[in-house]
């Protein structure tokens, strides 16, 4: 088990390094002079030069990359060139909002999607299975940004029961929770369908196993068989999916963060790419890649605990 974890951590570190390198190359391949774009046409040559120096843009590309890596190794993600604030401080301020949105979105999707999958698998091709199938495909197919707009129009403008923008007053948990409802609904809706279909497929496979037939022969109730025995095995690929999904949501909630004007890592990346604020973009992507690696690492470890066969596969 220990060897598996060590190997898995090594892989995570490698992934982070490669991702940072890829990001660095891509950012600097974007056409256009980042100084002109960031400062606009009115900036004087002095302002442009000062900006370039601040961002290390006056140095060779390789040097810029080494400076960045060196800083990262010492825990310094750089400084925002506009506000002079620490990038790490900026990102850590945004992270709780992204995590809370990801947890709320996946939370309600898991709470609804897994039972839906189980119910579908209980009587495959029955009317309940067909209905849940239809709902699942529907939720997967509808783009999240449409769900966002629709949710705002219905629940905020017409019914006026949920707020549209912001994350609520800090310290007021009820207000913050209220502000989470519509964004998490929009982000999580597609996941309901994914999880339901995944659980259904896994359950159907597991339900055909010999030990399930034995359980039936011993006279256990269907509910006991499903929730105590079948789901424990069928849930393994779903845990991996949730892990990957959670990691993806750390930067993938950007559309919800923009539409609902919520703070968050995805929105920071979006805004800073538009401003060519390279230190913040690099730092933000670095942080999300690292978190992604940690989350998938955690999900892999959980799966390996539940299913020891997985340890042999790395």
């Amino acid at each position, binding site marked *: 088990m220990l060897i598996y974890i060590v190997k898995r951590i090594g892989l995570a570190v490698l992934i982070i390094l490669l991702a940072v390198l890829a990001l660095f190359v891509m950012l600097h391949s974007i056409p256009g002079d980042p100084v002109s774009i960031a400062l606009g046409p*009115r900036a004087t040559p002095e302002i442009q030069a000062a900006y370039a120096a601040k961002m290390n843009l006056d140095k060779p590309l390789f040097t810029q990359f080494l400076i960045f890596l060196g800083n990262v190794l010492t825990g310094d993600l750089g400084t925002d060139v506009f506000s002079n604030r620490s990038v790490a401080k*900026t990102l850590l301020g945004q992270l709780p909002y992204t995590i809370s949105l990801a947890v709320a979105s996946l939370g309600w999707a898991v709470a609804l999607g897994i039972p839906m999958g189980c119910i579908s698998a209980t009587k495959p091709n029955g009317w309940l299975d067909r209905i849940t199938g239809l709902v699942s495909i529907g939720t997967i197919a509808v783009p999240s940004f449409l769900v966002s707009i629709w949710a705002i129009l219905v629940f905020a403008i017409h019914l006026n029961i949920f707020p549209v*923008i912001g994350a609520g007053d800090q310290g007021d948990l009820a207000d913050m929770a209220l502000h989470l409802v519509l964004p998490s609904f929009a982000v999580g809706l597609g996941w309901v369908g994914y999880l339901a279909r995944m659980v259904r497929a896994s359950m159907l496979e597991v339900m055909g196993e010999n030990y399930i037939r034995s359980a039936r022969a011993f006279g256990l109730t269907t509910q006991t068989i499903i929730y105590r025995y079948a789901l424990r095995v069928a849930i393994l690929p779903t845990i991996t999916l949730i892990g990957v999904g959670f990691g993806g949501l750390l930067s993938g909630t950007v559309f919800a963060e923009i*539409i609902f004007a919520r703070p968050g890592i995805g929105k920071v990346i979006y805004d800073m790419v538009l401003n060519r604020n390279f230190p913040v973009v690099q730092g933000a992507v670095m942080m999300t890649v690292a978190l992604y690696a940690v989350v998938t690492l955690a999900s892999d470890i959980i799966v390996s605990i539940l299913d020891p066969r997985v340890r042999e596969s790395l």
Partner: protein
Amino acid sequence: MTQTISRRHFMQAAAFAGTAGLSGVFPGMSFAQDGRKLTVRFNRDFDSLDPGFYVGGHPNNDVNWCCMPSLVHYGFRDGQATWIPSPFVESVVARDSTHIDFRLKQGLMWSNGFGELTTDDVAFSYERMTTSEWKSDYVAFDRVDIMDRYSGTIVLNQPFAPFMNTTLASGTGIILSRKATESVGGKFTTEAPATCGPYVYAWTQGQHVKLTRNPEWTGDAPYFDSIDALIVTEDDSAALAFEAGELDCTQISSEALARYKEKPPADSALTVAGALQYMWLGMNTEHPKLKDLRVRRAIQSAVDQASIIQGAYAGTAEASYGVVSPGLVGKRDSAGYSHDPGMARSLIEEAGASGLELTLRTLNNQERILAATIIQANLAEIGINVTVMPLDAGPFWEMGQESKGDTWKDLEIWIMRFGSGPDPYEPFQWFIRDQVGIWNWERWSSDEFEELFKMGIEEVDSNERAKIYTRMQEIMEETGAYVWLTHEPEVFIHRSDISAKFAPSGEMQLPYFSRT
């Protein structure tokens, strides 16, 4: 909606926005009470309040005008954007073309125990700007002569008419506390070491700026007790939030403007803050295909400006007749050419340019692409085949700059939009001889234009300035290199019972907001 706004009235609104702010007095001075809260939108996060080292514009200036002193603010006089004395001064008087006398109000205190606002702070702030990243705003500034603790004179090293409007009234005219600024090493960003104004601010990055009454403020009280500025980057989200009642005031996109003019939300009003953007179709006078003046004149006559305003901007933008924007001295009411496809065809035949192939470059956004498509159709009518080339911001903004490569040599025609400050001097600086290959992508120059540019800087009489800047626009137009297109307005929607005041450059002057 309090009233129906016709297109004509809507455009005229720019001239009237903020007329009540002539005296520079906040509206709540005699009846401030608890419970007055305003929620507005900032369309991006602010990055710094230090006028010497910030990016400028909205929302940095919006916050600064709430929490920091300046000698003058923006207002309107006789329908034209101009400066007015701020609530921080007893008086500001331009004694002559190089001396500006001012007297500060007494008893205005800096926060954090940094004492009273004095003339020394004014001198420190402006002298500091001459070595800052915004020193170009202070090229005409020489010194501040201190008379006493509250009185002084700003001395310019040459007559510079735009100084009040483009420097002192803008964000770079903010005054800092000498002691406080020096105590933090001479620079700061989002955490000002001392503030002095009707509000104090608390910022939560990426979320909001909360402005609350400054308990130490002894000047005129603003109307609202607190102002929440929510950071909403997306125009559509802000519009939806306004409709849901979560915002009292927000800037809106031209698309939303067209929608709201048709069907306005209940109890709302539209206000035009200004229209300091000017957009034109530019032509490279040195390009072999466009060297013949007759070809350029033909293009001027072929483009249907009215169709572009209607088709690309749903009638929400104002017709442009030059680089001077509405509300500024020198704004023209008509161009020296008109839409005349017949004349355009004649000119093309005369020049032997029938079947000409041109590439039209434009920024890749909805309005510009629509405008480009209309221009493409207009020019097809006179036998010019146009290929539209949409570009992202990066390559677009450097295509005419000699320092950025050789694209300028291939540049033929393009749609360009610049922004201006509230003084007619500003737009012309990009078209002088020194700017050829930098921002003068049309690549022409004129001795008369250069002479007039210098005269305009020194002339303080508004009528004379109007003549100078009108003539300069005529010179530009006579090159045939410009087809004037639009001035896009900065439009805000707000609750109809809110009296909103804006700088002509589009920032909110929040201390002047009130509820009627």
